[in-house]
């Protein structure tokens, strides 16, 4: 690794800290400014004002705001995060430890499928520009982009789960298998491989198919369009013409030479979408009852669970920073012209 790249990485990692601090501070104060209250939102009209006051005191919500902020900041720095204020008041670390792996396990195959399908179709459409295949792929990309993801999920559920019975409609694993399944990391696929629990692995993969394909297809339209447009531009450059003149096969020109040059904008898109998906998979998680972090965050915002929301966003901010850093590193490998 060159010294300039090393310097670049260290600077970016250090800058991540103030970035996360600013974000969580903003979220903390905004959550407290928002009308609504975690206690009342659970109890509703039941519960006397005296009872509410007792619960607020027990949860430390009656302390001055700066004391609560300081406490929250300390817990974040020590990676403790404290306890949630609602839904069982569990340790947020435990809840994130359950939810985050579930979303990552959904997102990785979804992103893989979408990148593979989107880039392949986009490259093929560019190669067959103005031919029927090009038009067909473009129409497909518009349709798939327009369909709301939860509607797509519902259609898949009805066809493949309810009518054909090929795949389960909800959850991460068969209920009976979950009774005895041991998953220390909460990455079910990984843990089933490590423990050689083949029935669990098969069940996990079966449960992954519909939600990851739904999520993947919902994103594919953008990849198709972006790849196609960039490919068309590259295919018109001099070096491609020269390659053709030298007799290099068209297939090699498109998929080995031209495609590599379209990767910069596509990498950017992958990085952006991966970060967004961590929270944005909420619609897919709802449709398939996938116990991920998007669903968790939405629910806790509804309940005004200050600690859970701010801790979750702190974790998101960290992930976004790391992913964006990884993308920057990948640029340097993909494009030799990029120097830091």
């Amino acid at each position: 690794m060159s010294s300039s790249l090393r310097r670049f990485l260290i600077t970016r990692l250090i800058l991540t800290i103030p970035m996360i601090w600013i974000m969580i501070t903003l979220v903390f104060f905004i959550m407290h400014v928002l009308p609504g209250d975690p206690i009342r939102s659970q109890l509703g009209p039941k519960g006397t004002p005296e009872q509410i006051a007792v619960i607020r005191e027990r949860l430390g919500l009656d302390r001055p705001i700066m004391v609560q902020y300081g406490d929250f900041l300390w817990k974040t720095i020590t990676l403790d995060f404290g306890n949630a204020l609602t839904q069982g008041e569990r340790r947020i670390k435990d809840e994130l430890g359950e939810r985050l792996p579930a979303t990552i396990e959904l997102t990785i195959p979804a992103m893989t499928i979408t990148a593979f399908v989107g880039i392949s179709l986009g490259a093929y459409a560019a190669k067959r520009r103005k031919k029927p295949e090009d038009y067909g792929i473009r129409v497909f990309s518009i349709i798939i982009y327009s369909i709301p993801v939860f509607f797509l999920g519902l259609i898949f559920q009805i066809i493949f789960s309810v009518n054909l019975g090929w795949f389960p409609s909800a959850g991460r694993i068969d209920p009976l298998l979950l009774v005895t399944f041991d998953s220390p990391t909460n990455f079910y696929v990984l843990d089933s491989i490590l423990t050689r629990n083949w029935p669990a692995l098969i069940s996990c993969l079966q449960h992954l198919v519909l939600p990851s394909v739904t999520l993947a297809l919902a994103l594919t339209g953008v990849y198709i369009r972006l790849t196609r447009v960039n490919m068309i531009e590259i295919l018109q450059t001099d070096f491609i013409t020269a390659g053709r003149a030298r007799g290099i096969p068209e297939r090699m020109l498109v998929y080995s030479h031209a495609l590599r040059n379209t990767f910069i904008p596509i990498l950017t898109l992958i990085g952006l979408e991966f970060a967004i998906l961590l929270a944005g998979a909420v619609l897919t998680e709802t449709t398939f009852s996938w116990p991920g972090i998007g669903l968790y965050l939405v629910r806790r915002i509804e309940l005004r669970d200050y600690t859970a929301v701010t801790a979750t966003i702190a974790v998101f901010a960290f992930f976004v920073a790391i992913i964006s850093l990884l993308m920057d590193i990948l640029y340097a490998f993909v494009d030799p012209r990029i120097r830091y």
Partner: protein
Amino acid sequence: MKSKKIFVVLSLVIMASMLLSACAQPTAAPTEAPAPTEAPAVATEAPAGPQQIWTKELRQAVAASIDREAIVDRVFQGRNIPAYSSVPEGYASMKESFLDKYGTRDLQMAKDLLTAAGYTADNKFAFDLWYPPEHYGVETADVMQVVKEQVEETGLITVNLQSQNWAEYVDSFVAGSLPFFILGWFPDFVDEETWTSPWADCEQSKGNGGFYCDKEKMQPALEAARSETDAAKRADLWGQVQDLYAEDVPMIPLFWEPEFISSRKGVEGIAIGAPFEFNYNVLSFSDDAVPASGDKNTIIIGTTDEVNSLDPQDAYSTHDWEILKNTGTALLRYKPGTAEIIPGTAESYTVSDDGLTYTFKLFPSIKYADGTDFKASEYVTMFNRWSLGGQVGFLPLTYVESVEAPDDMTVVYKLTGSYGFFPAIVAMAPFIPATAEIPDDALLQIPTKIDGIGPYKMVSYDPGQQMVLEANPNYFGADKPFIERVIVKYYADPTTMSGAVESGQIDIAWRILGPTEATRLSALPELTVSTVNAPALRYLVFNVTSMK
């Protein structure tokens, strides 16, 4: 230089946020609310005077102009049940007092009352009507629109519909900022008390945003009814309370929302009655049933509910109480599918002449699922735990003054007053003992397991996925479970859940199935759909302290 400017701007933004939150009230009033009233949270009586919005005559006028049948037909296609009393059907005392006084609708009466109050077509009576758009289902907005149209048909009223999301809405009505608003109600126990006092009792009405208090007639009527121990006399007294409700209108009951439960053919024993308890131990499979799990020893029940707390002295939601009542037993309980009270841990009980002392005799040899003996002293621990700051602690403490366990088999409760419905109180979840894992001096909402004294024990819980219950080998009751294992599977979406019961991935789809899915599933031959006349009431509350 440029980066310096960026840091300065960012710092200013952060400081502004900190200042803003430091100045913000803990519960901010809604920006669209009418001007907050003079009434503080401890007001016990509606302030009199010409500036008060809600006089009795105006409340009666609104009540007379509402047509519940039309609401139920237009919004729910007739699925819901018009409510002419706040007391549900099935209670001995139930009287359709609003029907007696106003018929299904009396527009002329409404007009006469409004005219007598001085309102004309040019000078209409105007008020804001509030609702939460999401909390009670998306149809709420439609319900409010229909109410608005009905009330405006008098030609003498203008209704301004306003909405707020749930978290803010609760703060607003408790603070007394909403003059007229819709709420839903679920009972805590099976007695008319929980269906009448919350909006008509001087103390309880404050917490429900109504601030109603009538010390001349309503309050004495409530107190007489709740302290009467003779069932027939009590029914008569509650009937009088319902008549006063229709006369004085502290709130307007609108309709009852049924719940639906769908099961695969071959699943038997589903019995959910007025107490709204779902007893898993009476479920069974017929010989030709095809269980979702492939195994007749396991039944899978789907739900879109979430677990909030499994500490019996904290839990205060329907689903939590369902789990607690299947893994634990209160002093008394209900015969499945009925409102008949039968022994729980208590074999029998006696009441003192003044109605202030209840003495319960426990069954002998009750053991926890882990084999530990259960003793009467647990009820003293339970009493102390109600003061730990849980969500439900205040509820039993409203009625219980103190408790003693003179020996291992006897529990003596001294009450804060004479309550004829105390047997229904001790059938609630707060009277279920906490298990060994839960400390005596602190709450533990999510224990890793529940080795209780109920027909089942909870062996595992994966949040957002499922909970597994297994038959308790040490259960003391005669009604041991037919099915060895119950898996409660958690869904995020009722449509997915209904698809799962349709395709046989689960055996039962329970709360909250919703009327749309229930109607769809009822057409399928492999499923049975039952309506549970759930005691879920929707009603409109007048904040009688609202000022113009």
